């Protein structure tokens, strides 16, 4: 009964924000519910990556030598550079959310574009890292090559490397897609200090992807560097 609902709202006499959905008391309650829903989604994401991290930890305990050998094959400079890029993109995202909160439309668009640029930088670097793995035959499968008796176990390391970084990169691609939509919405002045929920929630997602990389960088690139100097 949409007509009845509209009439009921009109009886109060004060027009409400167009973004407010009728089953919420006010925008604050709506924002709280949205944030909570996003966090619940992130709980499932933590468990999703947690399963892979669990497999990683178990195999690392079983095959510590293979983990050290495999980790040494990764390019610590590219990995470190990507860490800086991704943490930087979290900063620009946080500043983008702040700009949306304070109603600075142009700044919101700018920070979101900056975040997209940093996200794409990360993905381009990741592409060159993957290409190097293909050139060195370090991709798990029939063509996998690694000298020494630890070869089968190093292949497990690289399987988990590709699983973890691949799923993470997929999240990055989805994140860049989300940011593109948000940038368009911000450009069309859809957000205001009263309603900026999509920017805030996309920010939560982006920061989560950043946190995943904060764990992946030391787990994959820095396994046993003290015994094998670069």
């Amino acid at each position, binding site marked *: 009964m949409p007509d009845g609902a509209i009439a009921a709202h009109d009886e109060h006499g004060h027009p409400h924000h167009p973004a407010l959905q009728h089953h919420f008391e006010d925008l604050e309650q709506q924002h709280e519910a949205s944030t*909570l829903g996003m966090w619940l989604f992130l709980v499932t994401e933590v468990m999703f990556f947690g*399963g892979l991290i669990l497999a990683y*930890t*178990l195999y690392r305990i079983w095959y510590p030598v293979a983990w050290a050998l495999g980790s040494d094959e990764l390019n610590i400079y590219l990995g*470190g550079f990507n860490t800086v890029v991704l943490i930087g993109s979290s900063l620009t995202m946080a500043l983008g959310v702040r700009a949306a909160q304070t109603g600075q439309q142009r700044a919101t668009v700018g920070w979101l574009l900056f975040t997209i640029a940093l996200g794409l930088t990360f993905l381009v670097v990741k592409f060159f890292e993957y290409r190097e793995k293909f050139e060195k035959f370090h991709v798990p499968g029939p063509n996998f090559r690694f000298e020494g008796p630890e070869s089968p176990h190093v292949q497990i390391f690289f399987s988990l490397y590709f699983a973890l970084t691949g799923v993470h990169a997929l999240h990055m691609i989805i994140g860049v897609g989300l940011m593109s939509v948000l940038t368009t919405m911000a450009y069309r002045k859809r957000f205001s200090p009263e309603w*900026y929920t999509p920017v805030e929630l996309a920010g939560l997602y982006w*920061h989560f992807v950043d946190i995943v990389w904060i764990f992946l*960088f*030391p787990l994959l690139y820095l396994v046993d560097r003290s015994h094998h100097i670069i």
Partner: protein
Amino acid sequence: MSGHISPKSTYYTIFGALMACTTLTVIAAFIDLPANLNFPVALGIAIFKATLVVLFFMHVKYGSRLTKLIAGVAFFFLGILLSLTMADYLSRGWFTAPNGSTAPGAIVSLSPKPQPVPPTEPAQNTSPK
């Protein structure tokens, strides 16, 4: 809407702290720490960095108690996943002797006394088929 607006300086400070921690974790990885401490140290720094991101970038510090609960639940369940699975896998192969001795290399038998094979019995009879 009454969402908390952090000053820009907070974000720049947190970014600086995250960068410092990243440098620290790389340096720590190249130092041969005693007692296999490299892995715990790397993990500890990562957890500290993640906490900074969750509290300040993701605004959980200023969020409602319900949001804090849900965010905490994620890591609580992750802890259950990791600790219970590890408790299973890492304890496989452990022996518990009746007298409590689990010294490495000790031959442990679950029966009080190993039953010696009767010498009169021919060996062929014990083989299958």
